[in-house]
């Protein structure tokens, strides 16, 4: 089945430290992959996406992600975390069914930032 897996449920980092959130995918040859962020009680905001081309993708808020086909991974990174980055992060992938596309989400990684 086409899916994404986020192995880390909860991550704690110090403010100013670097961050890497893991995502593994199980999709076909050309996966469309996304990272979303969700603040408490809010909807989902798109951070970045990968469709094709350069495997290092830049997003908003200083985030980037690297697509690695050999490892079936699409990890999210940030060089220096700010307290406002505390939120839940979801990796997602696009699939097709009957000619219609839908996005399937991972279980999320909750990021805690400590001073």
């Amino acid at each position: 089945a086409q899916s994404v897996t986020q192995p880390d449920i909860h991550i704690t980092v110090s403010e100013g430290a670097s961050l890497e959130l893991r995502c593994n995918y199980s999709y076909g040859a050309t996966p469309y992959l996304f990272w979303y962020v969700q603040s408490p009680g809010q909807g989902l905001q798109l951070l970045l996406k990968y469709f094709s081309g350069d495997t290092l993708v830049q997003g908003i808020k200083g985030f980037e992600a690297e697509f690695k086909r050999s490892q079936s991974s699409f990890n999210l990174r940030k060089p220096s975390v700010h307290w406002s980055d505390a939120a839940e992060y979801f990796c997602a992938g696009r699939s097709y069914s009957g000619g219609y596309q839908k996005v399937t989400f991972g279980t999320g990684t909750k990021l805690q930032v400590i001073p």
Partner: protein
Amino acid sequence: DAGVTQSPTHLIKTRGQQVTLRCSPKSGHDTVSWYQQALGQGPQFIFQYYEEEERQRGNFPDRFSGHQFPNYSSELNVNALLLGDSALYLCASSTTVAIEWARYGYTFGSGTRLTVV
């Protein structure tokens, strides 16, 4: 340009009742997808509407139904509410225009928080 609008923002219902949630898609979008997000979980796909018809459905019972109107807005109906239906319900709009989808993907609303007591 307005994004995705969902109403109401919060709702409390009693077990066994019925509820209707509403979604207005982003201007220019013609497809609406609904997701259920239980506390501490990732969003789960309920169904998707395009051209006023349900095009895809996730693993949800028939108690969950929907509708899309000619103006592309959509409703999610849940009958015979169970305690387990308590969740954040998210609406996502998108376009079938491939180049636009590739550029913007889904746009999400802020959700409707449904509590069943």
